[in-house]
């Protein structure tokens, strides 16, 4: 296993859309091992996308099991993932190994259903919510060339603007 170099914004490769994986071989699994090692080496990293190490393929790893009081599915290897259902909104603070020394508030779906295949090409579907759902949405954004910076909401204002009611 080897630790890979994490691309840092403004590297334009972080803004590229990744392509689907169609070959599930030892090379892929070896890469995923390296990707996981890279994620765990990052300070507090609970997720990583292949595009963060310069491989523009639809591969992400999420593992929030180290966080206390968070429901989770353990280590998730998400290949060619798709979110098929969204429900609710939640505001949380996010940071990114590709954007050091900056965190900000982002609005995400509270609850999602994700379909994906694993490193052996086997299909899965999970329903998840809260912190794990936020992490998955953050990583899947990377596959679309999106960073949490693209979704920042104001540091000072709340989730929803006050409505102006008409008498």
């Amino acid at each position: 296993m080897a630790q890979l170099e994490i691309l840092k914004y403004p590297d334009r490769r972080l803004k590229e859309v990744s392509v689907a994986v169609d070959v599930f071989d030892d090379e892929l699994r070896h890469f995923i091992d390296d990707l996981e090692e890279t994620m765990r080496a990052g300070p507090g990293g609970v997720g990583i996308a292949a595009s963060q190490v310069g491989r523009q393929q639809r591969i992400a790893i999420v593992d929030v099991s180290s966080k206390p009081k968070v429901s989770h599915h353990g280590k998730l290897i998400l290949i060619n993932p798709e979110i098929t259902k969204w429900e609710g909104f939640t505001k949380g603070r996010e940071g990114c190994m590709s954007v050091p020394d900056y965190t900000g508030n982002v609005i995400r779906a509270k609850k999602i259903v994700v379909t994906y295949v694993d490193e052996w090409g086997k299909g899965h579907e999970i329903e998840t919510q809260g912190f794990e759902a936020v992490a998955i949405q953050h990583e899947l954004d990377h596959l679309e060339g999106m960073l949490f910076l693209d979704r920042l909401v104001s540091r000072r204002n709340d989730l929803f603007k006050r409505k102006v009611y008409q008498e």
Partner: protein
Amino acid sequence: MDNGYMLTLVGKDRPGIVSHVASALYEGGCNLGESSMLRLGDSFTIMMMVTCEDNAHAIEQAVAPVAESMGLRLHVDKIDVTLHHHVEPDVHIVVYGADRPGIVARVTGVLAEAGLNIINLDSNVGGTPAQPIYIMHIDGVANEGVSALESALEIVTKEGVDAKLSPIETMIG
């Protein structure tokens, strides 16, 4: 090494202040770091971390004409510019209640005693002129844990203000 300054400008708000001040600083050879602009009431306020090859006098010379033409008071302090050393808040607290003298002093007093280091605070007066309410948002670091802060907030809620604490769990992906 460049010299670091905290530049403060206060005056009546009007459109275009930030761009005029930023242009004057840029043309004066200064660089901006972190900054915070707020409209408080109908006043414009901004604090900017500025680095400059020259001294404080040079910054004042660069900004003074703009400040004067836009009716702003200018204040410059020498500071250590420490970028890339953000402190991450781990707790968010909202406090609100009927406006009365001493709310901020009381609430921040008990929170400080319980180990809160405030990173970010803003407060507002809403409601009606006859029945004003005070709303305060605080982001901070709970140096002695979240439960110490919860106990502290129980004290002030018994005194008639409402308070809500939510831990901030930053997701790094």
